[in-house]
């Protein structure tokens, strides 16, 4: 009789161990879940300095001790999908805090929660209305001609439109995970949007419900986002810090305002269906968005594994604009990993601060062009950088941590989460 190759006794032993561990975890988890938890998002203090309809402008006070303070303020334009709180999700992983510590005078648009009365608000109302009024407000407040603008996802698309229509008001443009070329089948969203009956959708819902969009996003990867994520939670729910961070992420993901119907209609028709923006054929209230008029320096970030806005949808803009000073930065992460993963935050915020600083002084010379690629002959200052998952060297990292400590006067820097528990959050942020 041949001996079986299956180590049944080992499997059973492992199963018994797992059961015991699960029981202990469940006991501890009940203590954690019933104890007072702190999962507030957007805890960095700010002032509301401008309001118009549902739209608010947040102004963050930067650290006065920060070295190399930037003269030109930066306006962050978030997408209409989900909320800008993502940039300040948890105290030890906050793009907002990093910007402030790097000396950036930061403004951020809070689009609020559109209601039924906002269903006729168009892209033009957002770009040439709210954004323009906000830019004028900042210019007037600081007595400056131009402002730096940074757009995130759909907010990046709005920023591109704005910069092309008002190049006289924008000093530097930063786009992050921004869809600008929609003619690709790489992202499922692009495939699904092409055949959607947008008129019927708007007729039915008025505004596009945030919950409907969230369901759509979950369906992009149900195995990870609807099963694995919660299995991970079950495995770590005895860890208070993990639970707090997990709930923060959940709060952000499902805090989805509705998208104004007419804005969504034009975004789908002119973007996903007809791909007009990248061809400079898009019109806002009769004005053509000519990308050749976008002449200010441009820094473009995107995620290599972004399944919502794939690289193919982001990497064409730098060669389509009129600017001679452009740079593409491809990070090996997903759609929101750029902002919430501690690994990429260490690369993302300092890169922006450095880039802006290099262009903050008018008298400063424009950085020297890098070595040209064969395909980039037409744009002498165009750079394409891929930043991989390898973290910066220890020396650089220490320097940055020193800067963070120096800049944060109010609260001491929080202890970084342990490797095991940060891994799952890392995974989640990269999946999304």
């Amino acid at each position, binding site marked *: 009789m041949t001996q079986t190759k299956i180590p049944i006794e080992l499997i059973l032993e492992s199963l018994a161990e797992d059961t015991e561990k699960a029981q202990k975890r469940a006991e501890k988890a009940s203590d954690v879940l019933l104890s007072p938890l702190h999962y507030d998002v957007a805890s960095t203090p700010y002032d509301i300095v401008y309001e118009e309809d549902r739209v608010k402008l947040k102004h963050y006070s930067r650290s006065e001790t920060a070295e190399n303070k930037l003269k030109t303020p930066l306006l962050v334009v978030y997408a209409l999908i989900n909320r800008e709180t993502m940039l300040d999700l948890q105290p030890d992983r906050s793009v907002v805090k990093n910007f402030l510590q790097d000396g950036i005078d930061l403004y951020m648009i809070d689009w609020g929660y559109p209601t039924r009365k906002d269903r*006729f608000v168009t892209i033009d109302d957002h770009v040439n209305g709210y954004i323009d009024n906000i830019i004028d407000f900042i210019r007037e407040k600081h007595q400056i001609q131009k402002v730096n603008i940074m757009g995130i996802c759909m907010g990046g698309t709005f920023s591109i439109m704005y910069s092309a229509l008002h190049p006289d008001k924008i000093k530097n443009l930063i786009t992050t995970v921004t869809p600008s070329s929609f003619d690709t089948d790489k992202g499922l969203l692009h495939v699904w949007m092409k055949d959607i009956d947008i008129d019927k959708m708007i007729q039915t819902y*008025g505004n596009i419900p945030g919950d409907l969009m969230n369901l759509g996003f979950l369906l992009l990867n149900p195995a990870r986002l609807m*099963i694995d994520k919660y299995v991970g939670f079950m495995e770590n729910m005895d860890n208070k810090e993990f639970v707090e961070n997990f709930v923060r992420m959940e709060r952000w993901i499902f805090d989805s305002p509705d998208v104004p119907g007419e804005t969504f209609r034009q975004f789908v028709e002119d973007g996903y269906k007809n791909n007009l923006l990248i061809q400079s054929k898009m019109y806002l209230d009769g004005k053509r968005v000519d990308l050749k008029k976008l002449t200010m320096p441009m820094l473009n970030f995107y995620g290599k594994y972004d399944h919502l806005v794939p690289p193919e949808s982001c990497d064409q803009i730098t060669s389509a604009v009129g600017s001679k000073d452009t740079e593409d930065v491809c990070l090996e992460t997903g759609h929101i990993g750029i902002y919430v993963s501690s690994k990429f935050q260490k690369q993302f915020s300092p890169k922006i601060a450095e880039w802006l600083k290099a262009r903050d002084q008018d008298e400063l010379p424009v950085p020297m062009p890098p070595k040209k690629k064969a395909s980039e002959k037409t744009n002498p200052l165009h750079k394409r950088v891929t930043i991989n998952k390898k973290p910066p060297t220890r020396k650089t990292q220490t320097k940055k941590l020193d800067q963070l400590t120096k800049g944060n006067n109010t609260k001491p820097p929080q202890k970084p989460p342990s490797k095991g528990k940060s891994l799952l959050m890392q995974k989640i942020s990269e999946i999304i």
Partner: protein
Amino acid sequence: MTEAATDAEKNPPNELLFINWLEAATDLWSNLAKTAAPNPDGSKQTKNAAQNRFLGQWKTNLSLMKSFSQAMNESESESSTAQAIDVLPKIILRMSKSGWDTGFQIQKHLLEKIGKIGKRTEAYNFDNLDEEVFKASTEIYEKELQQYFHVPPLGLNRYYQERLSSLLDKHNLFENTLAEFLSVLYLPMEKSFKVLQENLQSMANEGTLPKGTKDHYAMWIKILEGHYMNLFKSKEYTDALHKTLSKMEDFLLAKNETLHDFLQLLPIPTNKEMDELYKEFHVLKKRVKELEKQIKVMSKANKGSQQSAPAG
């Protein structure tokens, strides 16, 4: 013979009783109608006219009943009534038969429909593709049952009925499509278990079976993710997704239209009415903002020109 005796001869006691009751009733209702005081002002003349019309109609009806009662008492009529009573069961039988036949036909029709349902389902092969069940069920609904919701309604409430029927119809279609979509969405789950089982089998044969449950789970979730990715890229899935969205929107639109009917009965504005208002509001707001901007620019220019102008 006394007059009373003559009357008794002419009218048998039951008939007398009926005539007396008729006369008493006429007097009662006529007097009641007359008790209404005459109206001095012209505004109430219409009311009097209406009373007179009522009295006139009342008298006519009573006279008609009297003559009918008398006519029934005459010998020819008596025989005729007797004949009618003989015929009555036959008429009732005929009416019942007709009703029964109609009922039977409807039942027969329904049975035929059910029979067809059976025939239709037989035409599909369910051995391999479970989703065909949902397609078949949608088809059965569309071909055999949907027509009942499309029977044209009549009368004053026809539009309300039509909208209600449409709501039920759209709801059924949405339910069918959703069931089909969910079945498609469940396919990777089903397949992932099968693949996992096969993988484990081959690993068991090779003696490389993972020891921990976590490893089994990691293996399964990876397989599941792969299957979902394949499914989502398929045209079938995209079609099913769009179809479900479309049917859901049809249902929601039908629901909104029906709700609109109900809301109109209440002092609550409907979405349609509010949307019209919002649109006007939006356009006005845009114009006001534009004018505000223009005024701001003009006042700045004015200030500038005043400052640059020589003093005095």
